């Protein structure tokens, strides 16, 4: 790797680290800021992804929709208090073209409920496109591809 490539990789790893802390620290209002305005965010299963099926368990096509999701979670939807712990690793950088730079990374999410019950809630990979905006990396597309087709109980907060 050239020094430039090393620097870029470190920046991207920092992006994913900040993203994970934002969610795990319950700073959901800041979550849309990781995305460009006309972004695409989807949570799907590996099964749908492999079959090229477009459905998302969550399917949002603008930063405003991400903000709406957070507002709904805060003001409308009802779910038991719970928190996530994201472990993100195994970054792979791919094509760099008009859609942005392709990044994939693995994640594990442990969910802890208010009574202390913990479970391995989600495992999978991010299949993303990132772009530079005002000297910062932002997500243009994020496909959260879950290895399992089953969601335990419900999925409220973003992954």
């Amino acid at each position: 790797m050239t020094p430039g490539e090393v620097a870029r990789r470190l920046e991207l790893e920092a992006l994913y680290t900040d993203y994970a802390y934002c969610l795990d620290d319950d700073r959901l209002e800041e979550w849309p800021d990781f995305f460009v305005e006309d972004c695409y965010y989807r949570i799907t299963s590996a099964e749908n992804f492999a079959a090229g099926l477009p459905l998302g368990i969550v399917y949002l096509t603008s930063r405003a929709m991400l903000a709406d999701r957070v507002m709904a979670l805060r003001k409308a939807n009802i779910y038991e208090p719970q928190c996530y712990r994201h472990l993100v690793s195994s970054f792979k950088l791919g094509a760099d073209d008009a859609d942005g730079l392709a990044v994939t990374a693995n994640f594990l999410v442990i969910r802890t409920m208010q009574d202390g019950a913990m479970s391995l809630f989600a495992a999978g990979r991010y299949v993303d496109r990132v772009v530079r905006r005002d000297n910062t990396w932002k997500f243009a597309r994020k496909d959260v591809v879950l290895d399992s087709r089953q969601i335990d109980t419900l999925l409220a907060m973003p992954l």
Partner: protein
Amino acid sequence: MDTHAITWPKEGNSRVPYRVFSDPDVYRAELERLFLGRTWQFLVMADELPNPGDYKTTFLGETPIIVTRGEDGEIHAMLNRCAHRGNLVCLKRQGNESLLTCVYHSWSYDLQGNLKSVAFRRGIAGKGGMPEDFRLEDHGLRKVRTDHFAGLVFGTLSEETPPLADYIGNLIGARIGRVLRAKPKILGTTSQILHNNWKLYVENVKDTYHATLLHTFFTTFNVSRLTAGGGVLVAEGGGNHASYTRGKHELVSRADSDKLYANIQSMRDGVRLSDPRLLDSVEEFGDDVTVQILSVFPNFVLQQINNSVALRLVLPKGPEKTELQWIYIGFEDDDEAMTERRLLQSNLVGPAGYVSMEDGAVGNFVQRGIVGSEDEYSVLEMGGHGHGTEETRTTEASIRGFWQAYRPLMGY
């Protein structure tokens, strides 16, 4: 004495003993009397198996089933249990095979479940092998009776189950046909594990009263209120239902509607979606029905919420565990904008849905609430005691209808 006996309260369908939601004996009796008995259960959409050899595995209750498209072009269903020693024949969820071969001892079946060959049937070098009187035709996979309705394939293990069209009935059949108006196109699938008895989810589906109270997204964002016109259709026998909301018909004035919701936690002023494309829907069915939730006893659901159309299958996985499977569909004649609209509106439903995520948890809240109260009862008196069609959703008529259908089959 029948150890599965439940003494139903004298009030009838407006009381439900909590025991039926947790008792392992009740659960085992249900697997036998309902799921292997006189009911039709959804297996697949015929379009999911377009080609000969296509197969999919599913369940009648907890009993594993294979559904195939045979060489004859017809859909067939059979138990996924080798006639030899009971091994699962198909291990994958879906695939395409010309023969179904058990991995254990290579017994092979055709796509209709007929046994075609047995490994080493004649033994080796004149020793071993099956006896002379062993007949392949006596050892096929046990066949499941199938029937179709509007492209949906249902299965039953009982010869006594009436033909599917009669079982669904004209009232509800017309409401299925209304939604499944063209060749479906699958947009995707998902599944949810619910930590509650399967009937708590089915009750929730049939509960027209809870939607705008529990699902506060509806009222917070002014999407739907019970003061909108609507009602519930309950089929003869009670088991099948369709509830509906009308888009352009208000029962009371806006001011009176605000007043009715004023003290309800779900009512908040001034909250709007900043990107309302999510709710941008078009009149698709030409009848001003914006929401229709439909069920066929015991465990099939067809949902139309604006332009989001999905099939749901409620699979029991134990007295206190349920798998809820979702198949989201559009139609072959959808243009790109319509598909995008359906995908955006799919945010409303499913395990993460704005107006459905609570349903994933509320059954478990009940399951936890009733521990130690097995001899007490829930109270279902909204809208009276009957289980007929009503021109209001402020009723529990279709839940009482479920119990009306359930009790005779279970002997309660």
